[in-house]
């Protein structure tokens, strides 16, 4: 038998035959199937469920919905622990473990609560004013411990997530009465409809308000309507699916939670959540409204809840947050709470209504039931540390701007249900770019106009009665379907009807006036989550903040988990009063996605682990069976080096580099970008994109070239080979493989439409294997390609097309190492065979597989630049020693004009040079700063290595006016030590290139 002290006798929507055990802050409790964590905590009389963020004030449950800003908890244990969950949204399951956040050791007894004694020393902007550089480190430890919402779960998420693209004619967001009728009537017209609701059960307010539709209980109408929707083939109903983002052209993202009582990481449970990316021809927002708290002194005590939440708990979960409830309101809607509670046998000790006596249906009913009615009264104080004990009330003057002195008295109560009116959930409307207008009747912002194909129905529109919701939903549902291209049906069913047409008679009440001349602004909470009071907002107004965007950032109001769902309008209104403006003039902040916090895993979807960054793979797989150590190089997985037993990494790399200098090395350069350029204007085209002369290149020859953008900066480099008169093969860097082909295509389609040229990227089709070293020719000759490879017939910078056992093969004599080298292009499927064949044939010549690391040493020894490593977005060919080809070329090319701009001609530009540290064993990190004698920064190291061939430490560096400094000494600043280094040409090894022509 379980003891749920606060449970009522009424049935509610819980299943009392199914008891669920759960643990909160280490204590064991029980609830029922159908409870949320919040309703179960209330049932067990747990008053304090959390502490506030800044001042650690004890807080209880405030609401029953997504807007909850007090009961923020952590749910689950271990890897599956989820932080910042709202207890009102956590469906209870057996074995649930939850704990409060932002307190230690527990919400009941929190050591940091001492802060609340110092609250006046922690005003708005305190953090901004105090914790600034250079003194931040004094406070950092203190702040990090004290602040923060929950502990981040640093274990890998045991769950998995998926994504889905969806299309529909009509997307209805919100499954309350307005949304359901809209979906029904849009479906009747024939449109495909998706109906989303953030809760596990559709129905919205129908689940907990006592109302009737078409003469029967509204819950019955709800169940019939849902059954009807289920039976329609053109309707998808998605419960537990919250629309979080509204983007351009009616693109809506939603998070669908799959499995109601989901236990994290339980195998076979399927994905935890699915991100839906929905494109809808028309969208209907039926997102409802959230009740507004009243702003009065100490309005944040446990036991003070939203009035709608109190009747929600009573009607749906059969729990009452208290035994003796008072109501504090400025409108008629809230009277329902008193009436419903009385019906459940809960004592209602008073209705405190700020409005002067007036006549209305609700007031008459309250009077008939004998409820004590205090019209024209406000709450001026509350007591009770961990649970509300009493409220103090006082009569307001005629204008509601001050209290009548000396007339206050106390009322004993353990719960205060408050209502300051409604805030329409306009978040998605605002995200969609919609403009809001201030509705003075209900004192709230409602949708005004939007460029997108979007309409709003029900409470979000400021239509608060059930009858308005049903009528609007019915009317607009078919209207948007017709707007989406469907024909108006001959016969339409009538709109459902409800008796509820009550009026609100709302009178705005944004804060509590001074009492006997004493302001209580510093104890009137506006934002419970961020501990923002009326005084904080007044202070920011005094300090000159007027824009709501500034107010938000300065006071933090409306930030973090709840995004100001309950606090926004009150904060705006207080700001308005402090700056003598109407709320409508103050305006709102622009709402941004997501509407509710989204787990990062949901956004990642299946792109985690190996799929998080999909590498491009080399066609040769031999590497991975022969100790090739894989590393990511510009998106490709490439062997960094080939490990050998008994060798250190450095020894392996040196061995490979030595082979290239002394015998023969084999390197997989398949990631090299390759583009075929063909057509009668191919030479003309390339002549316009390279700084080098292309037209003079003979068939069978290869030239090194650089490409610039029109700003004169180097965008890529590589060689281009003339395979035929109108046929070129262009190679690019690995990074440039895709972008350069697209860039060329753009030039041809957009700028030079008269040129007859075809661009075909062939990087993936042709593998590139590079043989390099003094013995490389001997190895290649063993293949019997039928090509005379002697230097006389096939000198450096030549190309030949041939065949190997019937397979096309292109041989390029080009070199990135400074040694005699041959790049072999072969269709990618044959790359692995050719690789193994070369290793076999080259065995007697000492052939050695060469990884990226050794190759990098070889190219630094030669001073060959790598675009993007030596060069930045500003580097021109003049900066890296390529002024000669530029000066020799008479024709225009992209970037040419910019090279003569004064900025590009400055003497102090960064220029590529070599640096030789005097300490020959010095290891120089890339990026090391280069200083002059006066220790002024003059440049930086771009590449560096310890060269075994030269027995020296060498660097490539970009140095101001570097070329003029050759021969002088600069300083490398590594850590706190300065190392002298001599400036030289960057061609360290075989500077004249004699070895290339052997």
């Amino acid at each position: 038998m379980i003891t749920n002290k606060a449970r009522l006798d009424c049935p509610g929507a819980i299943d009392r035959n199914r008891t669920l055990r759960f643990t909160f802050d280490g204590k064991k409790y029980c609830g029922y199937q159908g409870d949320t964590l919040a309703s179960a905590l209330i049932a067990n009389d747990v008053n304090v469920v959390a502490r506030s963020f800044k001042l650690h004030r004890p807080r209880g449950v405030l609401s029953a919905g997504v807007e909850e800003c007090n009961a923020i908890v952590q749910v689950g244990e271990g890897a599956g622990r989820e932080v910042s969950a709202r207890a009102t949204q956590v469906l209870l399951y057996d074995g649930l473990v939850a704990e409060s956040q932002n307190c230690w050791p527990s919400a009941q007894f929190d050591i940091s609560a001492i802060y609340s004694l110092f609250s006046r020393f922690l005003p708005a902007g305190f953090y901004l004013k105090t914790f600034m550089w250079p003194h931040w480190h004094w406070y950092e430890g203190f702040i990090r411990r004290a602040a923060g919402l929950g502990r981040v779960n640093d274990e890998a998420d045991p769950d998995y997530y998926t994504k889905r693209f969806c299309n529909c004619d009509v997307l209805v967001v919100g499954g309350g009465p307005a949304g359901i009728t809209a979906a029904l009537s849009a479906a009747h017209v024939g449109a495909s409809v998706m109906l989303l609701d953030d809760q596990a059960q559709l129905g919205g307010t129908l689940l907990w308000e006592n109302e009737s539709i078409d003469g029967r209980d509204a819950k019955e109408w709800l169940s019939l309507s849902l059954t009807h929707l289920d039976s329609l083939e053109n309707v998808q109903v998605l419960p537990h699916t919250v629309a979080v983002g509204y983007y351009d052209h009616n693109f809506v993202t939603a998070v669908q939670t799959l499995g109601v009582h989901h236990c994290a990481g339980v195998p076979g449970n399927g994905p935890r959540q699915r991100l839906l990316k929905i494109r809808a021809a028309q969208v209907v927002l039926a997102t409802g409204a959230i009740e507004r708290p009243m702003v009065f002194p100490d309005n944040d005590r446990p036991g003070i809840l939203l009035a709608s939440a109190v009747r929600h708990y009573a009607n749906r979960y059969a729990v009452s947050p208290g035994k003796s409830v008072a109501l504090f309101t400025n409108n008629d809607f809230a009277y329902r709470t008193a009436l419903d509670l009385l019906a459940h046998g809960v004592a209602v000790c008073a209705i405190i209504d700020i409005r002067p006596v007036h006549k209305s249906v609700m007031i008459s009913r309250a009077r008939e039931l004998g409820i004590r009615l205090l019209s024209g009264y406000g709450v001026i104080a509350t007591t009770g540390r961990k649970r509300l004990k009493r409220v103090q009330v006082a009569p307001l003057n005629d204008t509601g701007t001050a209290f009548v002195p000396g007339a206050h008295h106390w009322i004993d109560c353990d719960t205060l249900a408050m209502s300051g009116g409604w805030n329409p959930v306009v978040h998605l409307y605002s995200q969609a770019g919609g403009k809001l207008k201030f509705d003075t009747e209900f004192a709230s912002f409602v949708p005004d106009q939007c460029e997108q194909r979007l309409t709003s129905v029900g409470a979000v529109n400021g239509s608060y009665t059930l009858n308005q919701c049903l009528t609007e939903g019915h009317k607009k549902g078919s209207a948007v379907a017709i707007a989406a291209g469907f024909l108006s049906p001959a016969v339409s069913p009538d709109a459902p009807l409800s008796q509820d047409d009550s009026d609100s008679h709302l009178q705005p009440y944004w804060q509590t006036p001074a009492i006997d001349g004493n302001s209580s602004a510093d104890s009137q909470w506006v934002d419970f989550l961020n501990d923002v009071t009326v005084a904080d907002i007044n202070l920011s107004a005094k300090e000159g903040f007027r824009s709501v965007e500034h107010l938000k950032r300065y006071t933090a109001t409306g930030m973090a988990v709840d995004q100001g769902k309950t606090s926004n309008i009150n904060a705006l209104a207080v700001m308005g009063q402090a700056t003598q403006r109407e709320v409508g003039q103050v305006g709102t902040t622009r709402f941004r996605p997501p509407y509710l916090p989204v787990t990062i895993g949901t956004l990642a979807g299946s792109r985690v682990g190996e799929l998080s960054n999909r590498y491009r793979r080399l066609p040769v797989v031999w590497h991975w069976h022969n100790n090739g150590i894989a590393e990511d190089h510009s998106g490709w997985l490439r062997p960094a080096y080939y490990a050998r037993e008994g060798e250190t990494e450095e020894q392996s790399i040196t061995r490979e580099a030595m082979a290239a200098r002394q015998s023969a090395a084999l390197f997989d350069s398949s990631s090299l970008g390759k583009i075929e350029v063909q057509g009668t204007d191919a030479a003309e085209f390339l002549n316009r994109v390279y700084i080098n002369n292309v037209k003079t290149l003979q068939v069978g020859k290869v030239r090194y070239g650089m490409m610039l953008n029109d700003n004169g900066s180097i965008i890529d480099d590589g060689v281009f080979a003339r395979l035929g008169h109108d046929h070129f093969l262009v190679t690019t860097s690995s990074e440039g493989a895709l972008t350069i082909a697209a860039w060329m295509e753009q030039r041809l389609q957009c700028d030079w439409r008269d040129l007859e040229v075809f661009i075909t990227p062939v990087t993936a089709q042709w593998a590139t294997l590079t043989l390099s070293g003094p013995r490389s020719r001997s190895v290649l000759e063993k293949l019997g390609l039928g090509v005379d490879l002697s230097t006389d017939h096939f000198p450096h910078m030549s190309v030949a097309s041939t065949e190997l056992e019937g397979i096309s093969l292109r041989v390029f004599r080009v070199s990135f190492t400074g040694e005699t080298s041959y790049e072999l292009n072969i269709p990618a499927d044959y790359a692995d065979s050719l690789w193994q064949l070369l290793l076999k044939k080259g065995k007697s010549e000492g052939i050695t597989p060469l990884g990226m690391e050794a190759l990098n040493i070889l190219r630094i020894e030669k001073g060959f630049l790598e675009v993007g490593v030596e060069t930045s977005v500003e580097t021109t060919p003049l900066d890296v020693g390529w002024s000669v080809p530029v000066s020799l070329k008479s024709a225009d090319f992209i970037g040419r004009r910019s090279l003569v701009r004064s900025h590009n001609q400055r003497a102090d530009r960064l220029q590529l040079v070599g640096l030789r540290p005097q300490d020959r064993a010095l290891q120089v990190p890339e990026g090391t700063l280069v200083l002059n004698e006066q220790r002024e920064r003059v440049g930086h190291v771009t590449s560096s290595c310890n060269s075994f061939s030269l027995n020296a430490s060498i660097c490539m560096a970009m140095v101001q006016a570097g070329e003029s400094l050759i021969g002088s000494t600069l300083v490398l600043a590594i850590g706190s030590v300065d190392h002298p280094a001599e400036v030289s040409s960057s061609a360290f090894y075989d500077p004249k290139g004699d070895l290339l022509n052997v």
Partner: protein
Amino acid sequence: MIQIDCPLCGLRDEREFTWGGEAHICRPENPDTVGDEEWGSYLFMRQNPRGNHRERWCHSYGCNQWFNLIRDTVSHKITSIYPIDQLAPESGDDNE
């Protein structure tokens, strides 16, 4: 994410396209003869209007064809799509 009606393929999501910046930027015919200022304005100066913007797009993950369109930079409404080598239709005159 906007949708673009590719003249060859039809209505597709923005993720299939590449944006190519303002359309109708003319590279001076003889770069050698223009001054730094004119060359600089060709390189860097753009209209960046609040409202209708004529711009280039490429359906990169589709037909790989470039075309021009007019997009309202506030509402993202696309009012006209026209071939890359044509001038903007009259209706899409921007707010100069």
